């Protein structure tokens, strides 16, 4: 599974670093380094609805506040 956080300007200013930190923490806590390919990328073409996150080929919108819930709902459930 590939999880990508957008670090393009718009998402960066909305706090994508905090989202990335949350994901990183959850990956470590749940021992998922082998299973989740975690990346950062520039711009998913969804700037208005950022912060953009993609799981394999699907793009989602999260905020620093909803990042943990998103991870539990979309990532953990598929493991």
């Amino acid at each position: 599974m590939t999880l990508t956080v957008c670090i393009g300007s718009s998402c960066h200013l909305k706090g994508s670093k905090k989202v990335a930190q949350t994901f990183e923490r959850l990956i470590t806590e749940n021992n998922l380094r082998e299973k989740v390919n975690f990346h950062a990328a520039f711009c998913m073409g969804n700037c208005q609805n950022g912060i953009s996150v993609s799981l394999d080929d699907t793009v989602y919108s999260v905020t620093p506040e909803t990042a943990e819930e998103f991870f539990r709902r979309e990532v953990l459930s598929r493991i």
Partner: protein
Amino acid sequence: MSTRKFDTKIQHLKYKVLREVARAEWADKLSEAVFTIPKYLSPGPHPTMRCCIHKERAVATERIRIAMGGDKDNPNVIEVIDIACDECPTSGYTVTDICRGCLAHRCEDVCPKGAISFKDDLHAVIDKSKCVNCGLCAKVCPYNAIINRKRPCENACKVKAISMASTGEAQINNDKCISCGACIYQCPFGAVVDKSFIVDVVRMLKDSIANKQTRVYAVIAPSISSQFSYAKLGQVISGIKALGFHTVVEAALGADMVAWDEADELAEKGFLTSSCCPAFVDFIHKNFPDMVQHVSHNPSPMVALAKYIKKSDPSAKVVFIGPCTAKKQEFRKDHAKPYVDSVMTFEELQALIDSRDLDISTMEEDVLDNASFFGRIFARSGGLSEAVGQAFKEKGSDFEAKPVVCSGIEECKLALLKASKGKMDFNFIEGMACINGCINGAGCLTHGEKNKSEVDKYGREAMEKTISDAIRYIK
């Protein structure tokens, strides 16, 4: 169209050619435009720039050729348009009519070669067979009546790559030229020019099919902060995206990456020169081959970031947009070729924006924020050294970086000479071929005094305050 965007009318002329070539390529009419643009630029019937309308149009045809990539057999991105060269006089020190025919004759007394005598009208005259162009006479004349007639291009070229061909026009020695572009900005006839790849960029944008086929990334140099004085930076970003680029990323983030790694390399090797400025690196290869081993192995910020972009998005095309003509030379070298697809200057960006008739000054402001303060100040002299110092601080290293900041190729040469003789009180050479750094690059729209403070201001606006924060997720 006014010339307010540029420092000189030569830049404006080059810009018009680039704009029209790009406009024709968007419309798939480039092959026809080759014949129509010269008439558009010089409608006649009277000449406004050269001796006759036919010469003006002939020079325009040459400019179009350069705008379409220039001479493919010449590896240098800097070219001379021979028919545009006015073959300026190169007579060296000459007595002008300001000479009063005074009684002091300081010029005669100071001349070590006895080259100065006085004509019947009591005015000084220099015997060219004896003169060695030392310039002492010019210095002592109370009227400043003696001048040095040198070609502006030769004067600008601090690596002595430009000379006069036997037929009179300027010629460039590619074995010496470092593609810094200083001659381009100084030639008052616009006879020295940088090849343009603007047609390739337009094709890349067209072929991307609205970024569905490929995604075209614009990587922008931090010196842009002082360039578009008539619009806000956010509006320039909107303009670039309106051209069809997928997104815009700061090259300064590549600079953050480079500063971080360069600190480690410096601590490991004990002595290093920077590798960000391709003209400086080329200068070392051509003049100080023994020093090549000390050039940092880090890629330039442009290449470092482009490499990351291609890793994160295999469908990406990367176009670097900056102030630099030497970058056009760099991106075609083996170490950069797989990552950077084309390079444009700010002049060319302006032409590209206007080729689509986009008025960026009325656009909404988009955002640009990827790098830290330290990555952004790479654009001006001293910024790279500050960033490397900061990287040591953030790493908690006690290694003491002792940088020498070289602004312009003459200062670079001096530092390299000292280093090659082992006589140095520094362990890091920050080399920038342009005086004051990239903010004075040949491809800049303006070369103003305020550019440094503009870059610092832009640096302070960065959301990330440290290098490690800026690069945290792109290692």
